[in-house]
């Protein structure tokens, strides 16, 4: 059972996780966001935000998002085009974590690279989530 995101301390490093940009998944993503622009750039290119979405999905596999978590901000840098069928790797770290008035504020840094370790995308997600309810003493 993966830990929930709120339990992770500052400095926590997520295990490097592969991202396989399978054709079926890319089609599912393009359909879900109704991206009418990416197809005009030629065959096989992946929308920039699909890489970010897949990277966050990989993180959610290793740390569960608590119900009520809210995405406050996002920074992204797209460093090279990505093609369907590529395997990428995401590395991520809890860059900061604070608590205020019952809410946790967390920054997560993302680094996505290819199989040759060339950078593909970097990013920072700012999320907030309710502090866990204190457990009753037994």
């Amino acid at each position, binding site marked *: 059972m993966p830990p929930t995101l709120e339990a992770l301390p500052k400095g926590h490093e997520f295990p490097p996780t592969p991202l396989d940009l399978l054709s079926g998944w890319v089609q599912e993503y393009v359909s879900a966001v109704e991206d009418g622009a990416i197809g005009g750039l030629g065959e096989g290119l992946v929308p920039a935000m699909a890489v970010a979405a897949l990277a966050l999905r990989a993180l959610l596999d290793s740390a569960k998002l608590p119900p009520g978590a809210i995405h406050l901000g*996002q920074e992204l840098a797209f460093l090279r085009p990505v093609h369907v069928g590529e395997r990428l790797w995401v590395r991520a770290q809890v860059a900061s974590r604070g608590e205020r008035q019952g809410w946790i504020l967390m920054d997560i840094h993302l680094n996505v690279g290819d199989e040759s370790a060339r950078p593909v995308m970097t990013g920072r997600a700012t999320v907030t989530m309710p502090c866990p309810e204190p457990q009753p003493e037994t």
Partner: protein
Amino acid sequence: MTEQDVRSTVLLAGSELAPVVKDLTQEKISRYAGASGDHNPLHTDAEFAARTQFGGVIAHGMLILAYLSEMMTAAFGQAWLSGGTLKIRFRAPARPGDTVTASGRVLQAEGGRTVCAVECRNQRGETLATGEAEVATGGLR
């Protein structure tokens, strides 16, 4: 140089980017949850979401960013995929039934970089997200 790239060379400071307009529905939000793997009940469970500060289901922030990214892709082509940066703050939630418009304006186009102010608004004119997008366009000129 592709047709998209040619378009990017004529975007001068003050130019408006072609907006992207999407009608949000619960079905679309649920489809995004499936594709992204983000099944936070805030996005998919009306009963749960009604008890939160938002009072109902809201769309994923990353779905709203996808609309902004589509606008940037249409305007700048591959330059967006290979040198674009996006810095966004979410201001208010987008909800099922909203019509979301992603728009942008070129603030600066010099030194091989084009900087745009970007935002998303709903049909009531409420700002959902604001920020800046930057693209390396120097190689195309």
